Every structure is written in C-alpha cells, then in structure tokens.
C-alpha cells in the first residue's frame, strides 16, 4: 500500500514497563504501510493522544498515580483499547514478589521532589478501564502485534506451546531429578521435560512460535494460561503441570512441587492467575484473549 495520511490512526500508551513491547512492535515493519502512528513517545514527539484514535495499545502496568490519569484519558479518546504484554495484563514484573518489603522500599523511595507518587502495588490496566482485547506475551511477537491490529477475529492461535515446539515427548526417557542446565548439554528434538527441565509449555498459551523451547530453553509461561485455565486460581495450572511431570518423569514429588513454586515460574504463572483474587477485576473471556 502507498504511504498516505488517510490510514487508520493508532497510538501507543506506555505505562510502567520495560519498553520491550514497543521494541517488538517496531520490528513488524508492516504497520507503516497499514496504519498511521499518531502517538508513541518512544518514537514520536507529540504531547497528547489525539481524540480520533482508532486503536490504542497500552503497554506496562499501573504503578504511579500519573499512570492512572494517563490511562483514563487515553481510554476516552480511543474507539478500541488493546492491553498489550504481560505487564498491562497483570501489573507485570513490577508485581513480582510484591511483598511488604518491596512495597516498603517503594514507599520510602517514593518521596522525591516533583516526582509522581508510586502506588503500593503494580496493577493490571483493566482494574481502571475497559479493555476490548488482551494480547499477552513478554513481549508479544511482532506477528501477534500485526494480528491484533489487523485481524484479531480471524486469528488461529495454537492452544498450547507444545503444539509449536517441534520437540518430541519420549516415553522411555524419564529423568529422576531436575537438572536444568547444570548438566551442560541440551539434546535437540527431544522434549525438555524428558531432559529434566521445568518446561511449562503444556499449560501455556501458544502463539509465540515456541521461541524459547526450540533453541533449548524451557518455557517460563510468559503468554500466560491456555484457555482452559483462564480466570482460574494458580492451583489449577500448577495441578495440571504436576500431573504432566508425574506422568513423564520419576522426579520425587517434593522436588516437582518445589520447582513449580519457584519464583522463576511465579514470575508469569502467578501473574496471570493472581487476579482471580482481586474482585475488582472483570472476568476475561477467551474471545477477548489473543
């Protein structure tokens, strides 16, 4: 398509995050010929979101009082709002280990001159505004971004990461301990669970193309729960994973349990499921989840 000034307008509002979502979006060159980017402070100098925006992408979690203000203002100016990335869906890494020690550290650090105040927690954006579509991932791949912008209804997202992984689950290769990378070799083509890794691809939403597991790194679950586990407590996901590990390995149960509760996994597992405990959050249906 020819470049023009009549293309649909889209904007990107960045709350508290790492910019990784923006960097990913920039990689899908395609949008320059399909959309007009009118607001995205990372790459455009413009101080406000215009009020005729077709799509507003919101990245990052809500961490400061200024974030709440900007988010509400942004919502009022856009026809459609897409929550992009794990941070916007859950509060994100900023919510990781959100215990009182961390909260206290934030509270103490927060008293600075002419600076926005930090909130005691990091919140998902749908606690404050209506969301039309959720795009999980840390970050979502450029392809998923384009799907979200162009044709979310027509998208076919693989149910779980295993479907895209290409590694084979073997019956006769049963590890007796979690070795992780300590052993020094990752065998190609064989499921990482068979090799003693804690891979959570079996319960994680597909669509990423199994970017991590194909070169040999266990899935950490950044796209969140697959459809059967949406809006469920963390226990449901963990129980499912425990079943997988009991079926496929001879690792002692305590070791499996300890591994599944590790912060590495809770970085993502808890994030997506924690919101079931927050009654102020709306239910997220699978139709709204990309």
């Amino acid at each position, binding site marked *: 398509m020819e*470049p023009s000034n009549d293309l649909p307008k889209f904007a990107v509002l960045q709350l508290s995050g790492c910019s990784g979502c923006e960097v990913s979006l920039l990689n899908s060159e395609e949008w320059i010929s399909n959309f007009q980017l009118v607001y995205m402070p990372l790459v*455009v100098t413009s101080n406000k979101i215009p009020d005729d925006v077709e799509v507003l992408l919101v990245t990052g979690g809500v961490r400061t009082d200024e974030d709440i203000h900007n988010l509400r203002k942004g919502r009022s100016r856009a026809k459609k709002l897409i929550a992009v990335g794990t941070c916007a869906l859950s509060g994100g*890494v*900023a919510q990781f*280990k959100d215990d009182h020690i961390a909260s206290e550290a934030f509270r103490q650090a927060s008293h600075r001159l002419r*600076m926005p105040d930090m909130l005691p927690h990091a919140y998902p954006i749908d606690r404050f505004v209506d969301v039309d579509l959720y795009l999980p991932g840390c970050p979502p791949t450029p392809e998923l971004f384009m799907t979200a912008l162009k044709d979310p209804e027509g998208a076919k997202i693989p149910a779980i990461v295993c479907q895209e992984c290409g590694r084979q689950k073997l019956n006769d290769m049963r590890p007796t301990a979690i070795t992780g990378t300590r052993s020094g070799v990752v065998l190609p083509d064989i499921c990482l669970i068979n090799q003693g890794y804690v891979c959570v691809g079996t319960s994680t939403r597909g669509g990423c193309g199994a970017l991590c597991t194909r070169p040999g790194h266990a899935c950490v679950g950044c796209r969140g729960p697959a459809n059967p586990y949406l809006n469920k407590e963390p226990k449901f996901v963990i129980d499912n994973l425990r079943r997988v590990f009991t079926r496929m390995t001879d690792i002692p149960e305590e070791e499996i349990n300890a591994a599944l509760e590790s912060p590495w996994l809770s*970085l993502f597992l808890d994030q997506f499921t924690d919101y079931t405990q927050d009654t102020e959050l709306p239910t997220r249906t699978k139709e709204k989840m990309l």
Partner: protein
Amino acid sequence: MTTITYPLSRIEGHARVVIDIHDNEVFRADFQAMEMRGFSHYVRGVPAEQITVIVPRICGVCSTAHQVASVKALEDTFGVTPPPLAQEIREVLLLGQLIQNQATSLFIFTMPDRTNASSLFELSQTESARAREFSLAQMALRIRKIGTDLISLAGGQFIHPIKTVIGGVTSGIPREKADKMIHTIEELLPVAVEMVDIYWDMSMEMGDRIGSWGDDEPAHYLASTGANDYRLNSQRLRVMLPDGTEAPSFDPHDFANYLQISESEYSYAGISSYMGSVVRANSLARINLSESLGTPIADAYRKRFVQTFGKPAHAIMFFDICRGIELVYALEKARQMLECDLEHGETEVGYSPKDGVGYGLVEAPRGPLIHHYEVEDGLIKSADFVIPTVHNMLAIRRALTVVAKRYVSQDGISSELERAVGRVVRAFDPCIACATK
C-alpha cells in the same frame, strides 16, 4: 523563579528536563527520571540460577546486555568458565544489540531532530517528499532489523533472549542460518553506509545552523572495550582523562573504588562519578578510547572522525556521529564472525552452584554494565546493577546547564531551547528503565 518543564520523547522511558530560571539567568537544569523499576528489591531471595530470566525485564531495549551480564555474574560466583565457542556466540549476540540500538538511536530517535520532523514516520503533504521519507523509514527499519535478527539467531529471541545460560549457550549457529544472515548483511551494509553518510551530512548542517556541536567542557571517558579490540563481551573498565591520557584500567570487582554512585532527590535514577569527576560513557567514550576497530569501513570513518574533530573529541553531538561509526563496525564485525564455524564444538559446560559473590561485566550500547550479586544458601541475598546511563547523569546535567545558558539571555528564553534540550539528552541516549532498575 520560573520553572520550565520539558517532557521528553524519542528516548527510552519516562523522563523530563526541568530548568529553573531567575532574572533571565539559569539557576539549575535537571534531568529527571519519572519512574522507578526497583528490581534490586524484587530479586532479593530468588534462587540465584533463576535471576537470569528475570533481570532482562529491567529493560526491553537493553535486555540482551542484562541477560549476558547476569549470566557472567553467576559464572563468576560459581567459578565456571564457558567454552570459547560460547564466548564467540555471546559476542555476536551483543553485536546484534549494538546494531539494533545504534540504528534506533540514529534513525528513530535523533534523525527527526535533523529534519525538524516529529518522527521518522511523519509524512509530508507533498507526494515526492513523502516517497523519500517513506523509503528512509523503510531503510532505517530494515537495518535495525538486522540487529534484532542477529539477536534472535544468537540469543533465541530478540527481546529478553534466552540462549545464554550459565556455563555457555544452549546451541550453536547453524551454517545455513549464518549464511543467510551474511547475505542480508552484505545486501544492507552499503545501505547502512549511505544512511550513515546522510546522517553525518545532516549533522554537519545542523551544527552549522545552530553554530555549535554542543560546547560543553571536556570530561572523563569510561568504556570497557579495548584500544585495538572492540570486544563487547568485555573484561576490564578503562578510563580516559579529559586531556586524552589513560588512567589505569580496573576489574569489575573493584568498581566501587573508582565509581561513586549516589541517589538524587530530584529523580528516581542514581548518579555516579569517576572519583568525583564528571564522566561520560557510550559511543563517544568508546571511540575516544580506541586506536582501531579492526574492520575496514568503520576504521576509515574513525580516521575521518579523529582527523576532523581530534582525539579525544568532546562536543556533545559527537556521540551521535560515533553511533554511526559503531553501526557500520558492528555490521562488518558480525559478518566476519559469522563466516567462522559457530556450529560445531562445545557450547556449554556443566556447573555446580555455589554461594559467594560475583560480578558480570559487558559493554552495553550505553557503556559498561555490571551486575553484582551476593548468593547465600543458593538465593540472591543482594543484587546491584551498575548502569551506564547512571554514569552519564552528571554529564547530562552539566550539558543541559550549558545549553540552557546558551538559550536564556537578557532577551528571555529562546524558542530553540526546547529542541536543544531534546538534542542534548538524545545524544546521550539515556535509558530510564535501566537507570531506575
């Protein structure tokens, strides 16, 4: 007292510049980081081996540097030495990050300052201008994409990469994929050179128009790349004094003896100095501290730079020019490295976790980055991230004061001030997510 506030765009993260003016005189100029990430709080108590997945999320722009620094810090703690092939693959990974970053800074962040546009993607009303702008934007994104593709190739994915693990990397780079990458680099290197030339000319014109290249005083320079070896997977930190002589280099273990880091009440970012002096890191520091980059086109640019501007060169806008030289270097170097066999041989060694203290250094696009961990009972007891942007904080503030003085006179505040402030900050390419880790 009048206070002017300029929110900043086209940099990583949320920041602004605040200038206090009294009686047409600049009282102070500050650079404020408006958010706080707080990773050193979150990672306390995390099993040490898992931190390498968590800390790349400090920043999606510099995630590669954080991931490698994190792995190196744990290798230091555990006493593991990765095999040579893994070191080479990590270097390719970091070159990818340099390409991505310098292309982004040059074309997306700072080129619009040279054309007075609001962004690289802004299109004019006239059709002919539009076509040219569109093709510039496409070329810029394509060059940038070589960087992200290289990161994917060597790191598994281009944001928050995963292939670097304690003891090495999870897999090598297959010949077929390396060849494809070489082909793309060969195709786009001339385009990159053309873009860098356009950028260099635009910068000269801008310097002439403004009548200055950024007339701040000389500073100290900090980098961990070598004089004749521009390796980003680096080992030691080097410092150049304002007169061009070099101070003794130091090991990352000793950083606290040389770099003093403190908090600021005006910002969520810290501030560091080199033994009390203003120090600068990033592209200009590396080029000032280098004798040769070791690739032909980049070396020709470096020679031209030194002949035109001297060594050390001090003006602020030279940071941008040096990024152009580095972009070309990283493309050439990546091609060279991909020609070698990165597929066969040992990619990782086993290890057993140990308690202790470790340091991991890499040369990130913005300068030397150090991760420093203390591990107790297999858990992270404390984690400290020594961030390149923080080293530049004093230098940014000083440069802003100089520029504010230039544009605030008895006639009042010049309308050029806002643009000048943006140019100065972008020259340092600060990363706010990292600086407020």
